[in-house]
């Protein structure tokens, strides 16, 4: 049995330690907000936070996540009201929405480290794929989330 800390809760899973964290979340813990898109860490649909750092978990062996705080889209906020989620709703950012949990997790991690990101920061740090092409609203949404977060602090 492996012990994991997922969204603040300790869970035990009986799984081969080489299994990617993505599949432990999805098939063993039934937390399907974290998506499978490519399996080779190219698309970012599987982005979670590992000790607060945006991480593509489709290539991360679950054993490597032991002892670290795993945050998934389900645990990003209590009521779906993280500033990024609020901004996404305000701007109606998602289209099909499949990539958006990963996109939101990447954006939230960026804002954690860089509360007022520039367009260049966004270009460097947000490398997730979205085949619907929501990028214009993703960019606007990150700037809006930065505003919302600073309003909360102020």
């Amino acid at each position, binding site marked *: 049995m492996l012990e994991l800390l997922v969204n603040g809760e300790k869970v035990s899973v009986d799984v081969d330690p080489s299994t990617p964290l993505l599949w432990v979340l999805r098939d063993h813990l039934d*937390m*399907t907000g974290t998506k499978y898109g490519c399996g*080779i860490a*190219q698309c970012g649909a599987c982005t979670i936070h590992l000790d607060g750092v945006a991480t593509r978990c489709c290539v991360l062996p679950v054993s490597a996540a032991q002892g670290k705080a795993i945050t998934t889209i389900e645990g990003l906020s209590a009521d779906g009201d993280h500033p990024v989620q609020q901004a996404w709703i305000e701007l109606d950012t998602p289209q099909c*929405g499949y990539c958006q949990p990963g996109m939101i997790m990447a954006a939230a991690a960026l804002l954690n480290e860089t509360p007022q990101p520039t367009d260049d920061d966004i270009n460097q740090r*947000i490398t997730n794929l979205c085949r619907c092409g929501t990028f*214009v609203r993703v960019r606007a949404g990150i700037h809006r989330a930065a505003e919302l977060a600073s309003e909360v602090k102020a």
Partner: protein
Amino acid sequence: MNPNQPEQTVDVSRRRFLVGSIAGVTGLTVGLSLPLGASQEPGVDAFEDEINAWVIVNEDDSVIVRVARSEMGQGTLTGLVQMVAEELACDWDKVTWEFPTPGQSLARDRPWGSFSTGGSRGIRDSHQYVREGGAIARELLLAAAAQTWSVAIKDCVAKDSVITHLPTGNSTTFGAVATLAATLKAPSDVTLKDPADWTVIGQSVPRLDTAEKVTGALRYGADLTLPGMLHAAIHACPVHGGKRRGVDASAAKSMPGVRHVLSVADDAVAVVADSWWQAKQALAKVNIEWDTGTNGQVNSRTIAAMLREGLEATDAFVGNSRGQTLETLADAKELVTAEYSYPFQNHAPMEPMNATVVWTDQSCEAWVPTQNGEAALEALADAAGLFRDKCEVHKLMLGGGFGRRANHDFLIQATQIAKQLPGVPVKLLWSREEDQLRGVYHPITQSRMTAKLNDDGLPEAMHIRISGQSILHALRAPLGEPQIDQAVFQALAPEGEHAFVYGIDHFLADHAMRNTHLRPWFLRGVNINQNVFYLESFLDELAAKAVTDPLEYRRKLLTQAPKALAVLERAAANAGWGRPLAPGSGLGLALCKAFGSYVAACAEVSVIDGELHMKKIWAATDPGYAVNPQQIEAQVSGSFMYGLSAALYSELTVENGRVEQENFNSYPSMKIAQMPDVETDVMPSGGFWGGVGEPTIAVAAPAVLNAVYAATGVRIRHLPVKNQPLA
């Protein structure tokens, strides 16, 4: 656990006819909470409570609107609900939605019309009967209120879910009279609102499906879990048309979690396991020997040579001909000619293909993200070997479609697997590699453009020869139909939704059909994607030859096409056409009529040290009526991403009969850093209904590449751009 004995089977014989509830249909009620929509628990007798097929009104005044078309990100769901709500005169804030099932449609003689979701048709093909559905429901509610009060219907009005009797001022709510309304006979005809009176249609209301997409709560097909469900991974012959010759599964069968290694049809092998990761790992250990036949000798060079021959062949089918094009060209002292090409593309939606199926010899059910529920039901029934009324399809939200999910090859496979495991729900999920290798692709084509210019430098005659694949032929060949494909001429057609907009006296578009073994299919935009790239690039070449401004050049050819000219002028004006630009920067235009709408784009780019930077694109769209402008903006913006990913980065090449690009590392898609800013001018002129999901894709590549030419003098004629220098 005995690997040959599923620990749980599911009784699918106790069919209950429910709406929108996965949980109820088969009795698979344990622990399921599948957010198929805002309405989760519609109740057993939903059809008895409905006002009509389109509308359910609950006692608390909440309204459920049924939507037959699929939602794959394009926003049709919200647009269609707006159209019902407009006529219903309900409070928008009380509206939710649900998907009726194809089985219900079959049983009720198709009250919701077509389920097909493609060709940018969701709204433009159904606006009439969808609005009538809402209007009839409103009349029934009014009739119920009038009957309750014993007054005349004509004295009652509905607004925001409240019915008022004008002479007395008495009022009631939709919810209060809904039960009675559900028992009344529907009026045979209704009058729809004048567009000038619309209050919901035309408004940029927020999408109805956003909240659950930002929390991870929405379950797509890939996320589905049913009690006792097993997971399947599959590998089909990577050379289309090839067959399975031999299989050695000895290593795979003993791997953890593996339940079954199954042959599927004559060209695939599936591993069924307790988890998908286990299935995928084991599948990699199955040794499969393929018989690839002669298809295994095909490669991109042989395909290009075959298409090249078609550029000069005499066996072309004429799609549009006016005047005496070939004769006029033959008489010319000088011809302008250019050859272009457009590669295979894959849809590559973010959610790989998947379907979950449970089969018994009595019935069969599927949970599937599909662009066409009715076609899915037909494919399911065929593969299941059962009559359609013994089968049911539950549509899930699509993690992207782009046309791919209008083809049900993956559902057929899932059914073939489930049929070997009676009573066990099996979820088949394709890997990204399978999605790339077993795609149905955007057809490959080349074109030769030939023109004669008159004394004013305008094209007196133009011939567009297209050589390449035909989607319709691939569909119809089994039926023995002739090698003619009128759809090849989208945006070049004599008339209709894909009419050629330019006034050229002698114009000929023809097609030399050259098919390959790679299966062609409808990909978002379909044939406009290459046709408009060819045409709009070549028009810019002609303008350059005539030493005329590209906007002025097009104006002279659009004197009989005011709506097309209007979007072009708007895009150019918004971009500040003619303004001074820094060296290495340029503006480029493109225009088309497609899927019934008029769209134009003006792109600003700079090319620095051979590297392309797309600064901004100004788009203009006239869809006739604009149901939800902010969603049209989203479609336009997304269309640039899709069209430019294809134009700049992605192509499928073929070696030894198989596609070489197996994942996003070799089939790149645009990222946010490359995405230009987009400013969209939605300018509905009224009087017609055009689609918005696709037309803008076609103007993306030519607008940007015409801007590249303006910036550098380099003309790109072969896509993708990444394969050639820009300086």
